[in-house]
């Protein structure tokens, strides 16, 4: 059997991400904001707060609260999406909260809330990863104390081939074992704060996936770092 190289629809190498761009301070009215994109997937995040939690009954007098809101804009996909929250967006909001909370140091803000609004301007798979990356940048920009940064990337398995940063076309791959999508969020220190799995994979391959994720996340981190550092001009 000849080792044949798996060909991706957009001609990328298996471990290659799409070109990434990041920018902070895109929303002047917010306390912190950022934009992050993986190729065609564009997410913007705005952070408001810490501010007093409303309604009062959801205040936590022990520590601060993080509240995320993920939203896909109606024009972000080729067929108009019905605006407003739905099952999928509510789930992703919650997952984003869980991915970001471990690095935030908001226990010094009792009865207060940090609001994060993530909007997807353009979608071509990996929207939750782009959203988490933008949210992490926006939180840092808002001056919220954080232990470290988080960066997120999705790893896919197409039949038996592992690839980094899926696009929509690859998500719909149907040959062989079909497509598996694994979004992973890691801290700078390499700790996992979020991992999801949509499809089938065995434990040996999953270890391989983590190895790829660590490598790809370093690249994401570098892009985030550059965006934050370059937003201040002297």
């Amino acid at each position, binding site marked *: 059997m000849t080792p044949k190289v798996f060909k991706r629809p957009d001609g990328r190498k298996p471990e290659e991400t799409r070109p990434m761009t990041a920018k902070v301070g895109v929303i002047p009215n917010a306390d912190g904001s950022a934009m992050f994109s993986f190729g065609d997937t564009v997410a913007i995040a705005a952070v408001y707060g810490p501010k007093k939690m409303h309604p009062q009954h959801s205040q936590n007098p022990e520590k601060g609260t993080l509240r995320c809101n993920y939203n896909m804009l109606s024009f972000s996909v080729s067929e108009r999406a019905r605006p407003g929250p739905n099952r999928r967006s509510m789930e992703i909001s919650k997952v984003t909260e869980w991915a970001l909370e471990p690095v935030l140091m908001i226990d010094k803000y*009792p009865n*207060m809330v940090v609001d994060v609004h993530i909007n997807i301007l353009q979608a071509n798979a990996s929207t939750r990863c782009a959203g988490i990356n933008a949210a992490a940048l926006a939180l840092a920009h808002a001056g919220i104390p*954080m*232990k470290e940064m988080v960066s997120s990337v999705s790893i896919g398995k197409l039949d038996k081939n592992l690839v980094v940063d899926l696009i929509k076309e690859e998500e719909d791959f149907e040959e062989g074992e079909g497509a598996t999508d694994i979004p992973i969020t890691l801290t700078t220190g390499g700790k996992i704060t979020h991992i999801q799995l949509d499809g089938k994979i065995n434990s040996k391959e999953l270890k391989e996936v983590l190895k790829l994720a660590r490598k790809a996340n370093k690249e994401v981190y570098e892009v985030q*770092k550059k965006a934050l550092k370059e937003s201040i001009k002297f």
Partner: protein
Amino acid sequence: MERKVVIPGEVIVSGEEYLPGEGTEKRGEDIVAIKYGLAEESARLVRVIALSGTYQPRKGNVVIGKVENITFNGWMIDIDCPIGAFLPVSETPRYVNKDSMSEVMDINDMVVAKIFGVNGRGIDLTINLRGLGKIEEGIIIKVNSNKVPRVIGKEGSMINLIKKETGCNVTVGQNGLVWIKGDKIEDELLVKRAIMFIAEKSFTSGLTEEVQTWFDKNKKDKKPAKAEKEEGEEKLK
């Protein structure tokens, strides 16, 4: 050590001799940033100065706020900050009859106060010092609280320039509210435009000189007819 931009989780310096200051944390040997901003070191103390984000109240800050509520022993003041601020009756310079507290300061009155304590539950204010107290007249504008150091300038150079050029009395609250009081409304509006100019250009170096030239240009144009026109523009904005 020269100043540099740091991001959360980044190691600023490493070594036993350094002490962690504001916005930093010690992890083993390293001093790590927990906030995004400018890192600087003085006398072995490493700290991070935030450049964006909300106003963080600190002891000793002079702030400008609005009376939100009157309680039996003081006033609740809104100083544009998530934690509530309280000004007790005991911290006023004169005797206040508890039955007529609204005569001293009523709801929606503006006040210049100093923070004399920040604890987990709230901020305590005082007006028992010179220059503090209720604002009777003038205009109040809002700038981003992170730009306040630029509006004041090094050792007050910028604010003194504004005062000298316009003859107005300017009080800058650390929370970003600025109280301007002059003899003529035109002077007050000129100060307002000057401060907006500073806030816009806050990253340029040699800003004081630039503001000086800005004043030279803008004051020359101030013929009566033109001044009226400028005022109209101000309203449009």
